[in-house]
């Protein structure tokens, strides 16, 4: 088990190296560079631009620049934000909790709603409940989150006045964004739960459990669900990525703080170091969550051994 964890952690290194290379390479491909965007409004002379370019090492070869970026990034140093004029890691540190709060809350919404709907649809397979649940799920995956967010704001904030339309802080301000972000993930989790549970419910050992007179609730929850859980946990882990990406949009819709809205702002204002930092940190979070998902298989299914 420990060996597996170490091997799995070691596998993260090439992935993160690749991510860092792409992030750095993508920004290298941008016409103009960080100095251009820094001095865009300053009206600096050509000599001044050349001096700054030398100072920041932008006149050096690509690989040398990449190596400098990488060795700093490994220490959490992404440089200073051009727009905010503070270290990128400091800005991320201040905003990350709000994004994590939103992502985790929406993951809770998505998992609770998705699992319940999926189980109900599978148990009532072939009835109108099943059809209705799957139609709801189709609606859920097809709704763009910026639209469902605006609909929820319109209904619950503007018409009913129950919840705030914008802002960060407190459970009330979190409810609408978490639901908005969680809807489509819930729909996908419901579909996966339904189909994997249906597959398991047809197996012999479930028939045995029923034959020995176990209550249907126990058969489903204790016997069938456990085996259906692997696919569900896998999809929940993958959805975490979709939620992190979706946070960019939801934070914009609800005017929340967070690294998503910071990343979008950084792209609009060509804040190179900030784009690098936010994208790297979000990808790191995603690969770590997927590692945790892999490890959770051992706990869910004791038959799985990682030698």
């Amino acid at each position: 088990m420990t060996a597996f964890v170490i091997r799995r952690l070691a596998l993260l290194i090439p992935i993160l190296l690749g991510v860092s290379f792409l992030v750095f390479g993508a920004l290298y491909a941008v016409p103009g560079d960080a100095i251009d965007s820094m001095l865009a409004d300053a009206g600096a002379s050509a000599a001044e631009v050349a001096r700054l370019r030398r100072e920041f090492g932008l006149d050096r070869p690509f690989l040398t620049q990449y190596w400098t970026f990488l060795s700093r990034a490994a220490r959490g140093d992404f440089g200073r934000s051009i727009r905010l004029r503070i270290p990128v890691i400091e800005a991320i540190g201040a905003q990350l909790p709000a994004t994590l709060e939103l992502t985790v809350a929406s993951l809770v919404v998505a998992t609770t709603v998705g699992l319940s709907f999926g189980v109900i649809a599978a148990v009532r397979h072939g009835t109108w409940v099943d059809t209705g649940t799957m139609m709801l799920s189709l609606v859920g995956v097809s709704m763009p989150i910026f639209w469902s967010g605006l609909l929820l704001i319109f209904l619950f904030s503007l018409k009913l006045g129950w919840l705030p339309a914008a802002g960060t802080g407190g459970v009330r301000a979190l409810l609408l964004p978490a639901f908005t972000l969680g809807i489509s993930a819930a729909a996908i989790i419901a579909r996966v739960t339904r189909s994997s549970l249906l597959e398991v419910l047809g197996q012999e050992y479930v028939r045995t459990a029923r034959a020995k007179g176990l209550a249907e609730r126990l058969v489903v929850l204790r016997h069938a669900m456990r085996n259906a859980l692997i696919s569900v946990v896998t999809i929940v882990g993958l959805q975490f990525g979709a939620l992190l990406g979706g946070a960019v949009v939801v934070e914009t819709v609800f005017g929340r703080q967070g690294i998503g809205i910071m990343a979008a702002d950084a792209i609009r204002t060509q804040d190179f170091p900030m784009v690098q930092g936010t994208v790297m940190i979000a990808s790191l979070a995603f690969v770590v969550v997927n590692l945790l998902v892999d490890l959770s298989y051992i706990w869910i299914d004791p038959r799985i051994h990682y030698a």
Partner: protein
Amino acid sequence: MTRDAPGQDRPATGKATRSPRRAMLQRMARHRGLAIGGALLVILAATAVLAPLVAPHDPLAIDPASIMARPGPRHLLGTDTLGRDLFSRVVYGGRISLLLGLISVAVSLFFGVLLGVLAGYFGGKVDEVIMRFVDVLLAFPGLLLALLAVFALGIGLRNAMIAVGISGIPLFARVTRGEVLSAKQNLYIEAARAIGAPEPVLIWRHLLPNIITPNIVLATLRVGTAIIFGASLSFLGLGAQAPAPEWGLMLSQGRGFLAVAWWMSFAPGLAIFLVVMASNLFGDGLRDVLDPRLGT
């Protein structure tokens, strides 16, 4: 091959046995989701193509006399802050969204299949390098890869299409590689190789036709996601720019006026929802009929 109802494919008494192609077409016609999704898509595509005939107004025409007019007989879906007719803008916007869906999925499909075929067919080091690259692309969560690509390429609709396309490449590469690995084992590939067919011919004539079905299904399912990603980029101000009648952009223009002119956000959102739902229904149906293994 597919999940048929019992007896569904039994030849009818007195009639000749149906050809597999005809049987499949009949299965497709009988699939309710596929039919509804397909019909909806045809209607939406026709509306977009025939936009000049369908739209009652010029989508860019400003009318100071009817600013933020409510939906009514004169303006079916109301007007925006510049008095532009929203119904006409939504109809013209269909052209952008459908084009975005098609172009970006074509980009994903082309490069994904290319990488997948190279990895699966040649194996070894080539496979190792390509698949590690695909793993790296998959490490970017959701929309973030498209955001990064937009940053590298520059803000704008055309680049947004390419960026969304790039974000879909790893999915197609993975599916294709798996299909190639299994198709490679078939005897007819061995036979083609034995009679000395050159590699490009072998891949093009014998391998590709056998891996294309799951890719078509995946492409159809991906159109909806691509349209949502593209609209999201425009919503964030990174895709289509004003005054283009792009649905995501229209929503972002309308969101500040939700309390006084809800219709500005309602109409374009509904349009995105309908197109995405139609392509999801169609894609799901196609998967059920053509390739149930991909299903959830």
